């Protein structure tokens, strides 16, 4: 047990999950992930490589993953914007990989050292074209570790990129962390093909919607493409094939949404006032809800550990008996509040508490809206 920074916990979680390749470009407030990897990965026979920009970083991660590595990168808003096209490649070519986005205040260079939660929609919709993605969001140093492990597991299980959406505060604060023993947390490796090499098709999915993935250099020769492709991985412009592919990259997440969507409930079950929160804001929300209870208002918190796919069912359930739902978040537009309104309907009393000046939300900011 020792005091560990969130970014270091992310790096440690990645290595625990089996990551052996990191490619990245330094950016505040994520750089400690890179620094930690540059120390530890070469000792383990892995590789840390600093690329020329974030476009190249995610590209190298994708390349290494197809060569068989569990691979990842870490960045912040400006770098995450640059990664979008090749992240879309990873969605299209179904390449397991993890991208850590430690959110900072924007737009553009913005308040480069200050926290924000304004990348929620970019994480979901930042790439062109129809695509789906998994995004997890830690609220503590311990979750930085555990959700990073989970991010790799999801990425390997569903052959899809996963974004770990942290924020500057979670990434830079220090809390005690007990690193789990080997074997304590489940580690999942991608499904390998078992058919003879001549029969292997890199995009022919099993019943679970996921196709086994070989590695370059293994006996199974294969082809992947950014262009629309058939089960063999070669270009295929047939409309029926295109529809099948787009349908499947959505369906393989949809059909497993109950395993992917993770929430935590803090007195949410009997809450008259429900606070839906994610990331560092969960901490202030829990303090505010506790204080509201001491003042006689039944408040509770539903924490979204999974941001995408969105927790429609869980929010609907938790909010069933609530007269008011509050969504505190560090962005102007209420990026998650809008989703909550979509889920619960326009007639429900949903209030945002928003901070967009680089300052975190305090319990009193949230308490005020609970008590109002």
């Amino acid at each position: 047990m020792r005091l560990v920074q969130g970014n270091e916990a992310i790096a440690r979680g990645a290595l625990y999950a089996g990551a052996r390749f990191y490619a990245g470009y330094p950016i505040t407030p994520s750089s400690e992930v890179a620094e930690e990897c540059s120390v530890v990965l070469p000792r383990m026979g892995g590789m840390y490589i600093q690329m020329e920009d974030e476009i190249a970083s995610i590209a190298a991660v994708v390349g290494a993953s197809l060569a068989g590595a569990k691979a990842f990168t870490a960045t912040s808003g400006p770098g995450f914007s640059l990664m979008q096209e090749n992240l879309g490649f990873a969605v299209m070519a179904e390449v397991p990989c993890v991208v850590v986005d430690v959110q900072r205040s924007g737009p553009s260079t913005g308040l480069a050292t200050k926290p924000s939660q304004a990348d929620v929609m970019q994480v979901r919709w930042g790439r062109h074209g129809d695509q789906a993605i998994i995004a997890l969001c830690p609220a503590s140093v311990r979750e930085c570790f555990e959700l990073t492990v989970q991010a790799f597991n999801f990425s390997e299980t569903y052959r899809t990129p996963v974004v770990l959406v942290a924020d500057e505060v979670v990434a830079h604060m220090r809390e005690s962390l007990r690193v789990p023993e080997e074997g304590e947390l489940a580690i999942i490796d991608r499904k390998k093909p078992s058919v003879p090499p001549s029969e292997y098709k890199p995009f022919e999915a099993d019943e679970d919607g996921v196709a086994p993935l070989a590695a370059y250099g293994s006996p199974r020769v294969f082809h992947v493409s950014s262009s629309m492709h058939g089960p063999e991985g070669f270009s295929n412009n047939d409309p029926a094939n295109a529809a099948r592919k787009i349908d499947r990259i959505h369906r393989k997440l949809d059909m497993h949404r109950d395993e992917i969507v993770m929430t935590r409930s803090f007195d949410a079950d009997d809450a008259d006032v429900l606070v839906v929160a994610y990331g560092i804001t969960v901490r202030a929300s829990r303090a505010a809800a506790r204080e509201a209870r001491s003042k006689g208002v039944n408040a509770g918190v539903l924490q979204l550990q999974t941001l995408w796919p969105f927790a429609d069912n869980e929010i609907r359930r938790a909010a069933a008996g609530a007269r008011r739902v509050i969504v505190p978040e560090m962005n102007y537009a209420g990026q998650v509040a809008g989703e909550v309104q979509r889920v619960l309907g326009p007639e429900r009393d949903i209030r945002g508490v928003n901070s967009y000046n680089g300052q975190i939300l305090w319990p009193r900011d949230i308490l005020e809206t609970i008590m109002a």
Partner: protein
Amino acid sequence: MTVFTQGLRYLKEGVTPHMWCPGCGNGIVLSALLRAFEELAYSNEETVVVTGIGCWGKADDYVVTNGFHGTHGRALAFATGMKAFNPRLNVVVLMGDGDAVTIGGNHFIHAARRNIDVTAIVVNNFNFGMTGGQVSATTPLGMATSTTPYTNPERDFDICALADVAGANYVARATPWHGFELEANIREALRKKGFSVVEVMSPCPTHYGKYNRMGTPVEMLRKIREMVLPHEEYARLGPAQKKSYFPTGKLVDRDEPDFNTRYDEVRSRAMKD
């Protein structure tokens, strides 16, 4: 007994005729590459052909080795990840002048600086063929394209000079006119440990040739031949004359340690730490 198939054993079945226009140099470059694969006895399993986007970027569709068709300009960055993680792979990156030195210029100079052990075969046809003949970073000053109708106000990159100063271990230039030399250069580049580049100056009669009235495909190929001189002859020219030609053949041949060798040294230092 092994029968030499002129590279045909690496050509995917049922994909010909290929999509390239009559008079394009790509088919000649591909056949030289596949013959070089065969002479070096490359295995399909340990070879990855990596492409970006463009006419030459369709070449991965025609080979039986592992293939990777990525995004525009980023082929070298994807390839870097593959080779860095698995040094046993033969990673061959096929790019046009757009992929290599226009949108992807940053990755090109950094791949050379890093000396990653991959081979880049850059087909330079002086314009963006796939999208209809627009100007590229290798379109010479004063030439016409579909987006420089009053001629190009910008100067062009010299791909080989760029690779040289950025630190590539092997740099050569060839043309489809010189098929055997081209194949020899590709073979040497594939064999070379470290970053290696073969630039192939190639005709695009459909667009670049049309905009600049360069005649039939054969006439255009002849014009390209007239633009180049073997580097030994080129070296004997005066500074003024040199401006009229590009040197061909092997221009750079070094044996600096490649990235993976250097990184192994980092690993040993880290493990002692």
